[in-house]
């Protein structure tokens, strides 16, 4: 079975931990509890042809209190840039994080537009998103609260990584 390190990146409060929690344990909590440092979780994802074990690095959100640490991306097979659909600033921050990540890794990345159950500040059709999504293998709207597309996002990533390793 393939083992893959996946990094969760994004500004603070965008829902990285909630996405991991929902994906790994199937749980969602309304209470926001900020992440400090890193927590690594494992989950096996099965695709039609193969299995892959994700080691999900849930990394403290990047903001004025915590800078971007490129070291955490070492050996990452892929990374997810998570943004909060209700906060357009998180999209700007996400783009900056993406640029920083691209300086240290060529790994594929997913753009996750989280909190899609809430009133959005931007949509998939917005030019900002259009401009940004060209840097990602896919852009997926998710909701850790309702579970919308959470499994799907990680599944897509698994498919992509399995395909890449086969080729």
């Amino acid at each position, binding site marked *: 079975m393939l083992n893959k390190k996946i990094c969760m990146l994004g500004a603070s409060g965008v829902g990285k931990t909630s996405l991991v929690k929902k994906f790994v344990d199937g749980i969602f909590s309304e209470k926001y509890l900020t992440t400090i*440092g890193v927590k690594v979780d494992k989950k096996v994802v099965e695709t039609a042809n193969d299995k892959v074990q994700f080691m999900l690095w849930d990394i403290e959100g990047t903001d004025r209190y915590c800078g971007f640490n490129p070291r955490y991306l070492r050996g990452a097979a892929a990374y997810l840039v998570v943004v909060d659909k209700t906060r357009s600033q998180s999209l700007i921050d996400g783009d900056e994080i993406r640029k920083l990540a691209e300086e240290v890794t060529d790994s594929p990345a997913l753009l996750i537009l989280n909190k899609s159950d809430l009133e959005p*500040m931007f949509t998939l059709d917005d030019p900002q998103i259009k*401009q940004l999504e060209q840097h990602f293998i896919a852009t997926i709207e998710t909701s850790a609260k309702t579970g919308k597309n959470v499994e799907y996002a990680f599944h897509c990533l698994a498919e992509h990584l399995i395909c890449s390793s086969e080729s």
Partner: protein
Amino acid sequence: MPTSIQTLLKVFDCVALRRTDKYEYQLISETSDWLDAVFTRQQGQLLLTEQDACIFLADFLIDAEEFWDKGAEGTLRSGIWTEERQLNSNQLTHLHLEASAATFDGEKLLIIKNLELYYKEKQATLQKARELESSNEALIKQHDYVKERLDALLQDSRNLQDVLDMVSAAINNANLGVLITDVKMVPTIQNPSLNELFEVDRNAEPSNKSAKILFTLIDQQFPEFERIINTKRNYEGELYWLNTPYFMKWLKLSMHPIRNGKNKVTHWLFLLSDVTRIKHLQQQNQQLALYDRLTELPNRQFFWQMLDNMTSLDAPFYILYIDINRFKYINDVYGHTAGDELLATLTERFSAVIKKKDILARIGGDEFALILYGISDYKECQHVAKELIATASDPITTDTLNEVRISVSLGAASYPSDARAVECLMKYADLAAFHAKNSNKNSICFFSDELQQKVYHRIEMENALRLAIENGEFQLFFQPMLDVQSGEVLKAETLLRWPVGNDRWISPADFIPIAEESGLIIPLGRWVFHQACIYLKRLEDLGFNVRISINLSPKQFNDKRLTEFINDTLKLTQANPKAIELEITEGVLISDFEKMQHSLDNFKNRGISISIDDFGTGYSSLAYLKKLPIDNLKIDRSFVKDVVTDDNDKTIVLAIIAMAHQLRLDVVAEGVETSEQQQFLEHNQCDTIQGFVFSRPSNFEDFCQFLRDKFN
């Protein structure tokens, strides 16, 4: 290991390990109850591979191995990570750990700390700080949204009453206080939330009671208000409302001028939110209550208190206002992180210049204020100001900024000679800084009655400019650009002129900086583009095959509606886009590259060509030349002026021509005034020439005559 060290490690809930082999470690301290829950032991050895131990630590050990191999001094820390494990009970527990690698007596040591308490404290602090951050962000967004929505609607409908009708339902339902007044500050619209904010019953008399409270607070707390109204600026700040003995509230205020289609300010928009909760969160977070979070300097409120205290001592001092020029531009171009880094750098530099007893504060987005303790002589104040200016002018390099240069404008007022009241001191220093900003970069102005007059004159000039735009009082002049070899008129640069009667003109050098600084460059630039398109169509109808070149300032280029405006104008005037050239300066090109490329590609796709104006004087990154769809380079006139006599200028001009041709770009030399300059440029393969040697800028009729003469 000595017992004392063992005890110490235990007190700090640490364990110490000695590296015996790759991934194998021997415990050299007492064990802890959490250790075995996290790590696997085999024959007394701890195995720290990715499979046996935790993934995070195994990853850190890659760096640790490198650190030990180098024999580096000090320690290497992993940063905090969390492990989910079962301890004594069956319940899941989160362990918050940090590892450090160190070398001691040739031994490779690994210390692992359990940071349970520290983690909780840090999490509690950051939790509040981040909640605060996100509440602030949401509020700012809410304010910006209402403002942008109004602006967008006004742009489209151009009738305020229509707009107000359209947004009245939204305003009534908004959960932030909205007040719209006319220019005399008479309320025309206010929403129920405003009354709720000021605890005013909706049926209370007079009906504008909330507005009255607001203006009283503004009078007491914002000495800059008059200047902001006069100069029609946006403003953001906080108000403190103490409604003794009942309650106190912190209010976030943003004010924006509302302009009609002709860019005339007809109303003012005031947006207010209750930020008491945010302040409360700040107070819980100690440092944040009276200090600016980013720079950790005293904030506006604290500065005001200290200024009050200083005046009560009745000893002379100076107050300095420090305004960072074009800070918004840095934020727009390089992003907010870069803006924050710039502020932090300036704070460090300013702090190094001032005395311990002086008080430096951040009182606005791009404004610092300084109390110079015990200084009564203006020369002493000037000395400090010069040091501040010098330190601010040094190139700034941070994680996201590379050798960026900025300038500051300083305003000074003295206690007690200029004023005794805190409000007046702040107002006078603000006016002086405003004057400095409009005079020279990196300058200081001292408040005086004369300065006050000058500021008011500047404000009058700005108002006159606004009126002139409204009434279309400007004229476009044209200066031809000729093919060096054939002498054919290829194109003409449009130049703006402002006539003020009796054959008198206000120089562009006088009014363009005011237009740039006040934001009037956007409507003025639009007027120029629109008029240029009309003239272009007339030229075409008259049978002249000449292109028109139009200048775009960086501010215009950052206008979100620029592309839409250009497309609409081309459609309206039926001007041929292939006959239009946009002249932009190098400064425009340092903006976000992708955004820039997107905009320029859009113009190119319409057939518009792009020229880089004043080439050689701006930023030296030449990467954009090959990546962006540029057609021409215009050599700055300063190099052309002495090209015949100055070897340096000669070399620069030749280098520009050679480089441009390598990149397949055409070269235009502007400011060509003599036949010697013309000959030099001709001999050295310059493509196009513009200057007095052929023609001064002239009005449309004279330009047409020039074309006729040339064609004949």
